């Protein structure tokens, strides 16, 4: 047409450039495709992982803590339903109004109120906030009924540790409490769960790992705001193992009642297996308080109590064993060959080394006695004399054979070793040399000597079982796995004759009318016990006091009174069980501790499944041995 020539020229230019643009577009699209290839093929697995991380949230599920039961399966620690009430902010039009309505059913304190409002501000509105825990069933039911009037309020049921026997097992079973900063060295993620409880004392602490179980996990799909869309998978975890103890709750309960009001402790054990049947320390505390959270006042009260309720006296209370130690001295003397057990030694009421007088507990003296009678009368002078002859180091060796000054890896944490002195020990500890007078004092279980009630029970067990190295333990089974006895009952290295003398002496103590614990005997045939009293002095009696009149315990402050001890085993002709009782400042072993031990031992024997009470054979009665002849 009109402009054909000119148009052709610009058409050519246009076509070239349009083709160029087309080519450029192809290149750009190629670039986009390459980028897609890079992201969707080369980097795909990486991004798939990121997408999964976005989408999937793992929530830990706390496994159910294992139960703790006694030897007959009675529950000692369990999990109880914990009723609580939560509030979901997004479901209520007015949090404050809802809270004030809720207050009519469950008291909501000022601080709780503030915390709820603070949490509501900080967290997404669909996350529930715990308002109150440990509600009563009535409160829980009330909330359920009034739910329509309480928008956003939800009653919930959780699990919390419960100790049905309260204080009576506080020291053995222990308790669980909130996880502390120090506990976080354990990297188990469970510990970071809000509200998680960890074993803090006793078996709860010792077997915490086993009782705790393994964390479960719930994988949930969440959206970008963190709201849970659905559960993808759930692994309930492994519930904690059930722990079975050697305790007999019936005996434990009875012993607790029997020792109520005293600062005292007792250990009952099987002399062959080492099973601890009862292990009581009074006063105690309620372990449930520690789980829920102890108030400041309660904690201060426990700490300041002179009877030391927080101390597990059975393993951490260290006392001079007093006269209960005399069997050990007798055995050491016999096996040394330096003392003839039949030799009669005279007690005038005192003996002396140089200018020092050493008094017998009986002012007038006991007259002549052999070794068995020395034990029966618990004559101090007799034991001063034989201790002097054999020396402290023989006594020390013998004490260790009977388990004194030793620890047994007992499952309940906090075991103390007590103290058995020797010449070497004194040099190392004080830099001073050993004086002979100290040997005499050790001969009657006083001075440096210290033992725990558990050690005393072991000592008696080893006498009763004929000198086998029984070791106490309290865990019977973890899950399905029975825990074998810790000892193969090897000989402790004491002659059976020495053991026999110790046994005879203890038999006389309890079953001879002039024995120091005759009043606390068991007279039922076949259940008779053999015991030994101990009255451990905690103060120094001055010469002036000695010369005028020794003050009676009743005249002294509680803190100054003698400790009352009693150790025993039974039945005397076929020993099975040993017991130790220590009553702090209980004044008299025979009057305070022995009756308690007798009552507990009787119950133990009654409950012994294989015990067939048949005859009184072997029991020393007044007719078979005449104590009058003893002199």
């Amino acid at each position, binding site marked *: 047409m009109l402009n054909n020539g000119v148009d052709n020229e610009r058409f050519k230019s*246009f076509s070239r450039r349009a083709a160029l643009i087309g080519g450029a577009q192809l290149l750009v699209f190629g670039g986009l495709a390459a980028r897609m290839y890079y992201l969707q093929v080369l980097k795909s697995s990486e991004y798939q992982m990121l997408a999964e991380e976005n989408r999937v949230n793992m929530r830990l599920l706390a496994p159910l803590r294992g139960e703790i039961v006694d030897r007959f399966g009675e529950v000692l620690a369990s999990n109880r339903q914990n009723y609580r009430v939560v509030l979901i902010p997004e479901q209520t039009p007015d949090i404050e109004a809802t809270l004030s309505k809720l207050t009519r059913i469950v008291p909501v304190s000022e601080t709780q109120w503030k915390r709820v409002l603070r949490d509501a501000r900080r967290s997404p509105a669909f996350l529930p906030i715990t308002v109150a825990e440990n509600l009563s069933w009535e409160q829980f039911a009330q909330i359920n009924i009034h739910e329509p009037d309480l928008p956003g309020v939800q009653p919930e049921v959780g699990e919390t540790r419960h100790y049905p026997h309260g204080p009576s097992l506080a020291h053995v079973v222990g308790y669980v409490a909130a996880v502390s900063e120090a506990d976080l060295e354990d990297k188990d993620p469970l510990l970071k769960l809000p509200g998680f409880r960890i074993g803090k004392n006793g078996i709860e602490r010792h077997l915490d790992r086993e009782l705790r179980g393994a964390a479960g996990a719930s994988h949930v799909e969440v959206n970008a705001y963190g709201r849970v869309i659905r559960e993808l998978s759930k692994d309930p975890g492994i519930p904690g193992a059930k722990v079975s103890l050697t305790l007999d709750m019936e005996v434990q309960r009875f012993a607790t009642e029997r020792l109520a009001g005293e600062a005292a402790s007792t250990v009952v054990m099987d002399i062959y297996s080492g099973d601890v049947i009862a292990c009581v320390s009074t006063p105690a505390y309620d372990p449930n308080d520690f789980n829920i959270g102890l108030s400041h006042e309660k904690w201060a009260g426990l700490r300041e109590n002179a009877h030391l309720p927080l101390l597990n006296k059975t393993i951490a209370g260290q006392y001079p064993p007093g006269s209960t130690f005399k069997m050990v001295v007798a055995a050491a003397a016999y096996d040394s060959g330096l003392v003839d057990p039949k030799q009669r030694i005279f007690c005038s009421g005192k003996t002396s080394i140089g200018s020092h007088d050493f008094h017998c507990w009986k002012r007038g003296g006991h007259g002549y006695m052999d070794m068995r009678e020395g034990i029966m009368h618990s004559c101090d002078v007799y034991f001063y004399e034989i201790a002097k002859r054999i020396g402290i180091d023989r006594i020390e060796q013998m004490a260790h054979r009977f388990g004194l000054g030793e620890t047994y890896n007992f499952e309940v944490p906090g075991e103390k070793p007590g103290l058995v002195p020797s010449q070497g020990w004194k040099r190392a500890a004080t830099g001073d040399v050993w004086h002979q007078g100290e040997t005499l004092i050790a001969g009657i279980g006083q001075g440096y000597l210290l033992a725990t009630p558990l050690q005393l029970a072991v000592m008696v067990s080893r006498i009763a079982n004929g000198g086998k190295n029984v070791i106490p333990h309290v865990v019977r089974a973890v899950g399905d796995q029975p825990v074998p006895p810790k000892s193969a009952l090897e000989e402790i290295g004491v002659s059976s004759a020495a053991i026999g003398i110790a046994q005879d002496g203890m038999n006389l103590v309890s079953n001879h009318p002039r024995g120091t614990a005759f009043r606390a005997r068991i007279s039922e045939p076949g259940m008779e016990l053999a015991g030994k009293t101990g009255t451990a002095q905690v103060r120094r009696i001055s010469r002036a006091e000695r010369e005028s009149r020794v003050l009676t315990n009743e005249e002294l402050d509680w803190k100054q009174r003698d400790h009352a001890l009693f150790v025993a085993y039974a039945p005397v002709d076929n020993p099975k069980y040993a017991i130790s009782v220590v009553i702090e400042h209980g004044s008299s072993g025979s009057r305070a501790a022995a009756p308690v031990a007798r009552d507990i031992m009787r119950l133990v024997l009654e409950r012994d499944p294989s015990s067939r009470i048949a005859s009184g054979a072997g029991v020393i009665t007044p007719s078979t041995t005449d104590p009058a002849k003893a002199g």
Partner: protein
Amino acid sequence: MVDAFFNGGGGREMRLKDKFLEFNWGFLLLIIAIASIGFAMLYSVADGSIDPWASRQMMRFGVGVVLLFVVAFVDIRVWMTLAYPAFAIALVLLIGVEFVGFTGMGAQRWIDLGIIQLQPSELMKITLILALARYFHGLTLDQVSRLKYMFMPLLMIGTPFYLTLRQPDLGTALLLGTVGITLFFLAGLAWRYFILGGVAALAAIPIGWGMLREYQRQRVLTFLDPESDPLGSGYHILQAKIALGSGGVFGKGFMEGTQAHLNFLPEKHTDFIFTMLAEELGLVGGLTLIGLYFMVLMFGISVGLQTRNQFGRLLAMGITVNFFLYIFINIAMVMGLIPVVGVPLPLVSYGGTAMLTLMMGFGLLMSAYIHRSFEITRNPAAFW
């Protein structure tokens, strides 16, 4: 009578029946295919519901198709005549939003005309192409490269560029500027100006940086290092890349995209819809869509090459390049290749104005195609 409406009068005439015969039905099918992918995605965004997005998008697309036909059947010479007035109206509206516009998504972009809310910047995208094509149609190849003829088109590009940048709507401003420059290029502007312009543009970067709004700068900075702020401004890019990458070759399955359905993806029914497609349908789905787009582009270029009048050629190429830029900016943005600028994915993203603008553009492209054999003198005043 109907024929008379669709014809410009004077010169060659076409009957409506002939126009139907000339209409490229394959192109229409291509567009329907792309839009259908969009419907499917909008159906998925709503968790398997046609409401609220897919249904409205379909309706708009239906209106758009009608618009396409009407525009396509109008004589190319009519469009040439209307080019300047239309541009003038769009410009007035664009200035109007300065005063009566209301803020949507943090920028002044909308004008309320009572019945519909209009985005004058959208209208400008079409009318600028019309006006530039009209202007360059009247120049010889020599004249294009002469300075005195450059003033007018630069003003036509510069004014809306500045106004949209002010709104601030960086995406539209860049689109307008790039389309304008491309038309200069297609009209035959000498290469030396592009080289000169390129150097000048590089020098202007520091000045331009100073003119950007804080949020725009932040977008650029975030783009440069998105991982520096994964929970803040880099979050969108990162989540988009995760969605894309996790889709893999075959995708997670239709309506199974976790990034999309769990709301990790931002604005997934509008600007980020491509990531959702790539997440659910994978590389295969993404490349299919890109392939369809490429076919549209190739058609547009072929129209340009076939047309016997310069206005139609420039118009066809302008529309095509505009369409291309939409696609490129959107997809490159969601893949983390360029900064986040608010540009929808044409025919797929949810949005009314963009859809109608696009369909109008395709109508013009089709009009150029139908009337491709028309030859029009450099001075159209001869007809009007």
